């Protein structure tokens, strides 16, 4: 039991790190902020428990079975893992120097959705006792498929063109995530409560987009001045199947 908890702690830490990571923006403090909440209407599909029986070393890391994450909902019909970003109006900036971290732990991708800026260095770690293969199904960017045996060095890579890239592991077919490569440096991923905020925006007119892996993209026009904070909410229509 305790051991299980211990295993979970770092996982939680990583989720926190990577979810917030998006919100930190390179531009100096001050400036405008766009924040809001992403919700759904209708009945979303029931997430299925993932059967990891095939990989005991992973299965024993999870007290309760991990659920599929293609439509992850939170309290009062909030949607998690929605990427909100500036799709127009931002003249873009050089990719930041810090690297983005992607973990394979307990036969799960942490985080499930990983936003990054085009050209930013991406480091992929295998923290498991078993070997994974990382297969990002890129279409615009070059596609590759590599094994990463247990205890081997992290894989360093980067994507130059903006794209939503599904990532899968063939050895553990349930492992499924997304690399979201963006032009802008202003992006965020919604947390459990479906909230997000894009900080430090220079005054101007922006198109804000919200992308959900199953329900696609929605956009809204927003104009912000000096250092005001505007609220923008998105609502996706959910179907049971």
């Amino acid at each position, binding site marked *: 039991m305790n051991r299980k908890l211990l295993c979970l702690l770092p996982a939680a830490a990583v989720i926190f790190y990577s979810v917030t990571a998006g919100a930190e923006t390179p531009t100096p403090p001050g400036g405008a902020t766009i924040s809001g909440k992403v919700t759904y209407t209708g009945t979303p599909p029931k997430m299925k428990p993932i059967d990891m029986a095939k990989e005991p070393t992973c299965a024993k890391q999870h007290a309760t079975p991990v659920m599929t994450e293609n439509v992850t909902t939170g309290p009062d019909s909030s949607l998690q893992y929605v990427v909100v970003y500036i799709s127009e109006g931002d003249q873009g900036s050089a990719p930041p120097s810090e690297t983005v971290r992607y973990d394979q732990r307990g036969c799960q991708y942490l985080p499930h959705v990983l936003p990054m800026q085009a050209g930013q260095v991406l480091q992929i770690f295998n923290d498991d006792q*078993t*070997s994974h*293969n990382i*297969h990002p*199904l890129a279409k615009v960017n070059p*596609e590759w*498929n*590599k*094994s*990463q*045996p247990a*205890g*081997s*060095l992290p894989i360093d890579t980067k994507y130059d063109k903006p794209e939503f890239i*599904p990532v*899968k592991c*063939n050895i553990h077919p349930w492992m499924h995530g997304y690399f979201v490569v963006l032009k802008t440096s202003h992006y965020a991923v919604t947390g459990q409560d479906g909230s997000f905020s894009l900080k430090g925006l220079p005054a101007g007119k922006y198109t804000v987009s919200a992308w959900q892996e199953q329900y696609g993209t929605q956009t809204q026009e927003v104009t912000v001045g000096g250092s005001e904070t505007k609220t923008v909410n998105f609502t996706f229509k959910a179907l049971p199947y």
Partner: protein
Amino acid sequence: MNEVSTHPVAHQHTAPTGFIRKYVFSLDHKVIGKQYFGLALVSVFIGMVLSWLLRIHLAYPDYHIPLLSKLSATGAPGGVMTPEYYLSLLTMHGTLMVFFVLTNAPFAAFGNYFLPIQIGAEDMAFPRFNMMSFWTTFAAFVVMMASFFVADGPPISGWTAYAPLSAVGGDAGPGLALGQDLWAISIAIFCIASLLGALNFIATTLDLRARGMSLMRMPYSTWAWFVTSVIALLAFAVLLPACVLLILDRVAGTSFFIPAGLVLSDKLQAHSGGSPLLWQHLFWFFGHPEVYIAILPSIGIIATILPVFTRRPFLGPKALIGSMVAIGFLSYMVWGHHMFVSGMNPFSATIFSIPTLIITIPATIMTLLLTGSLYGARMRFDTPALFCLGFISVFISGGISGFYLAQPSLDTYLHATYFVVAHFHFVMAVASLFGVFAGTYFWFPKMFGRMMNETLGRWHFWLTFLGVYCVFMPMHYLGLVGNVRRYSAFVDDYLAPLIPVHRFITIAALLTGAAQLIFLWNLIWSRFRGPVASENPWEATSLEWSTTSPPPFDNFGGKHPVVNHGPNELGMDGPDGTDFLMQTAPPKNS
């Protein structure tokens, strides 16, 4: 007049001068034979090093081999190979060994050099074809090697390249894009080369036999090469179109082997209606005869060499030749025994198992004849003789396990386990190579004019003989436990306890491999420092020993040998105190 009308080849030309025509694009079957031998030698050592890497990875998964990361940074990051790279090397080991070693060494190499001489011809029937077939083989080799240097490395679909894994391309995994293309192209080229070669062998045997060289007077090695070339002619004529169809499926979007509705890397494939089993049928229709293409020449070589050292005629030549022909014939009716659990109609499994079991009869006959010819002999135990004995032993061991796999009911348990690996390595790889070793020690003096070092030769034999048993016998036990082959690591609960056995095998394999370096050194040393060989150092009787060592450009120095005797008139009162009679010796009654 009579001379002209009976003798195949007419008047002499002079040997070509100048390096290129003499050693590179030579039309001389002896040079071409050596070229094949060299190519096989290179391939066998590459294949052997690959097997070392595979074995080390299996027994010591975490062992770092820095050199490996040099060879492929992606395939072996930090010197530990990835699962896909393991499979790449596995595929290359199988392909190199089966095609470029077991087909080339006993058949193409020795056949090219000695078939014409043993029948008293001055060259192959079609020397230009002969040259072409070697250089085509070489091209195939280069293309195959190229796959080591492409993005994802060599293919990971094994030497049998089962569709659709081999047919759908990169979506199925690393190495299956460009690497698999190169593999298929290389094999197609290899087929063309082998067809040219086989055609040449057959025509030569039929047309160019010396005066008096009736079919029943041909040495058994010649018989073996002849039967083998017939098998090869038909087998490669099937693999070639199969490869072409595979290539079309890969590059032209056809659906010969790829069924509808496949989903790879989350992509629904565009193909429709193809049959994966069709590939298996075509492949094994070639693949099983290929086994006999590998082993028959070695049996022939052994049957030719053994009597020379037992100093007595071979026991039952007709039975031997009959068995060879029978095997050649049966080899085309048994391919389905590779597919008992493949999903083909289970009734056909029972049909296929019967000829498969029957084929053991001619095999047993040949083994018993070889063993029987030792009985009560005054034997000379030079290195070639030792390898003959070794051959018989490993051939028995490998043949016995065939009984298990020939039965569908046992194959359901043993199929695709190490039991199979043990079986075909013994009966096909090791046995065939023992034939090649025996042939090398026996014919080296004829090919290079110098004897090989006997002491090194014996060391080579004892280490190799003991070594192969240490490597392959335990694999039977692994098979009985159900240890699946082609696994790059043993993560299953029931496989982990078997790692110690794998360690033993790995160490044995490394040592046995090291013993082959003795052989390599012996070749190099003897080539330059070996004692000069006489015309007939072994007191053998076949035609190659009636000419100088090495033979002149036209093999018999303008003479046209006339054959008066069978291939092994041994253990009798020969001329001036010898105990043998050359095939060319004057007839007894005159």
